[in-house]
């Protein structure tokens, strides 16, 4: 295995290639004219001096050492690693859209039209009345949604509601969101079918309940069939129903959270509408609410002008403030808009149907048991008494990315699998083969896997005990 060190650490003689000017210098005097205090400055800095082909090869090599949805199947359950169509990149790269957000509404009518259009699309898709595009990620959307719910309760003189109910199987962000918003988290056990236990919910709600956060279909792909009863119980106690949009991609065109009784929701545009996963970079997690909560949404939002001749920004009357600058991450939002616009009603419904079909076809082909069903766009198989992480690492040797492992915890040695709508039958067959072969391999093979990848099995223990966090730590190896 050769880890490719950042090339500029080489001490070879400076190399030039014909396209770069000979006047490039290895070091630059930076001291002169620096307004910084002396102890913070250096006399000179070393700049990379590499030929363009070297740079191109360096980064291409790094990209080849990685796995990506553009390289093959990536069935990471819950994460929804679906292909990002390249036309959305073209749309985002259009220089006409590259305007600074700090301009008068009148001069950015095109941008505002797209943002307004996306608010409308999302409201329609979710069955919500009002949408903010501002939150910069799904988790930020959750936090925004719960803060809006809190503001609503406070405005109604019910700020003493102190609890948010979260099913045990929920995404970890739900617990974090509730805690960060200042609520006590009440964990709700699942019933034996893997769904919300209505009796437990009845027992959990009270005058302290601010909200129930629910994912539907839930994290093992099951539709919460009792959603009407769930909504009645929560609303009956004066609480709000929060929809975690992580699995909305399974429902597109078939069910709307607003119609099920949800009051507030976030959209994971990267999962549902194929924008790039953030990974710490720019993302978007719009939030939709019913009418009663609209006045608390972050500012600014976008609306049509009274005359109907254009668009303007406005501040919701009792806004919770800003959770991000301006209207959010425009370059992500425009990709979601483009995706929705191109697929249309039928295309979105078709994407959801194929996501469910693909998961069910793949599930049928596996030799592993799938304890909970009928499932929709994802399923939690179990590797039984075999370690799910070992099976997963062996799958890498068979040329596919493994599923999410050991989560949710309600399934022992869970392998949470979500092929998404983008895989065709032969790709699903390859995935099934990789699953079944890895599952059938002997213990020793599993424990030593992977060995056909760029990096062999990572020593997680050493990595955690003695983290080496920069390229300098690799020196001398």
């Amino acid at each position, binding site marked *: 295995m050769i880890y490719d060190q950042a090339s500029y650490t080489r001490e070879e003689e400076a190399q030039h290639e014909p396209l770069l000017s000979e006047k490039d210098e290895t070091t630059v005097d930076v001291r002169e004219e620096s307004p910084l205090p002396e102890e913070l400055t250096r006399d000179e800095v070393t700049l990379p001096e590499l030929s363009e082909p070297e740079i191109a090869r360096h980064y291409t090599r790094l990209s080849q050492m990685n796995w990506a949805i553009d390289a093959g199947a990536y069935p990471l359950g819950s994460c929804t690693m679906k292909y990002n169509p390249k036309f959305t990149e073209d749309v985002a790269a259009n220089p006409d859209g590259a305007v600074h957000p700090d301009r008068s509404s009148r001069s950015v009518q095109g941008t505002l039209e797209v943002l307004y259009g996306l608010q409308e699309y999302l409201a329609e898709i979710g069955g919500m009345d009002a949408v903010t595009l501002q939150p910069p990620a799904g988790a930020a959307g959750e936090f925004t949604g719960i803060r809006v719910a809190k503001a609503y309760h406070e405005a109604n003189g019910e700020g003493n509601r102190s609890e948010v109910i979260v099913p045990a199987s929920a995404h970890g962000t739900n617990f974090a969101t509730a805690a960060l918003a200042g609520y006590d988290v009440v964990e709700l056990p699942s019933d034996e079918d893997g769904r919300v236990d209505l009796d437990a919910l009845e027992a959990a709600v009270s005058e302290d309940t601010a909200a129930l956060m629910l994912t539907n279909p839930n994290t093992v792909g099951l539709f919460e069939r009792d959603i009407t009863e769930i909504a009645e119980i929560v609303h009956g106690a004066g609480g709000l129903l929060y929809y975690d949009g992580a699995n909305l991609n399974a429902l597109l065109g078939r069910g709307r959270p607003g119609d099920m009784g949800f009051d507030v929701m976030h959209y994971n545009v990267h999962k549902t509408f194929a924008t790039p996963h953030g990974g710490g970079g720019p993302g978007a997690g719009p939030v939709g609410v019913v009418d009663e909560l609209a006045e608390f949404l972050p500012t600014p939002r976008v609306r049509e002008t009274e005359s109907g001749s254009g668009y303007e920004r406005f501040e919701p009357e009792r806004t919770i403030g800003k959770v991000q600058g301006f209207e959010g991450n425009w370059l992500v939002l425009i990709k979601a808009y483009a995706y929705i616009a191109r697929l249309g009603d039928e295309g979105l419904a078709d994407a959801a149907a194929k996501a469910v079909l693909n998961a069910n076809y793949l599930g049928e082909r596996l030799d592993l048991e799938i304890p909970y069903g009928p499932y929709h766009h994802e399923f939690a198989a179990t590797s039984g008494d075999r370690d799910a992480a070992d099976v997963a690492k062996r799958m890498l040797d068979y040329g596919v990315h493994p599923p999410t492992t050991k989560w949710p915890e309600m399934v022992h040695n869970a392998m949470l699998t979500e092929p998404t709508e983008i895989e065709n039958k032969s790709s699903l067959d390859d995935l099934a083969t990789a699953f079944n072969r890895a599952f059938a391999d002997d213990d020793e093979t599993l424990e030593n896997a992977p060995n056909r990848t760029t990096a062999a099995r990572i020593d997680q223990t050493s990595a*955690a*005990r003695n983290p080496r966090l920069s390229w300098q730590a690799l020196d001398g190896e």
Partner: protein
Amino acid sequence: MSFETPDDRRYLESHEWTTTDGDAVRFGISDFAQDELGDVVFVELPDAGDEVTAGEEFGVVESIKAVSDVYAPVSGEVVAVNEDLFDAPELLNQDPYGEGWLIEVEPAADADFDALLSPDDYRDQIE
């Protein structure tokens, strides 16, 4: 698989142990617990002088698999902390009843050791 459960101490259902003799007692986690956790990579403990309360968490043990709170078998004041664990958390895996101890506590006057699981009871629980 069988796990060590020394007879000279008492246990909690949540897999902590305490010694029972002397002015100060030691807390730790059981052999079973360290095996369940897998390789421990980080330990967070209180400071000497802090109070711990029976049944309540006093620290955190993090492994490559999980992050777990650890609970105090009895109430008392912390008189010593096993600082070796900060640099060598693997001691918890290698020697959970010896060098892998967590904290030393001067038990409160009302500390109730009899309420804790006997070695036999604890063995029954993990078998």
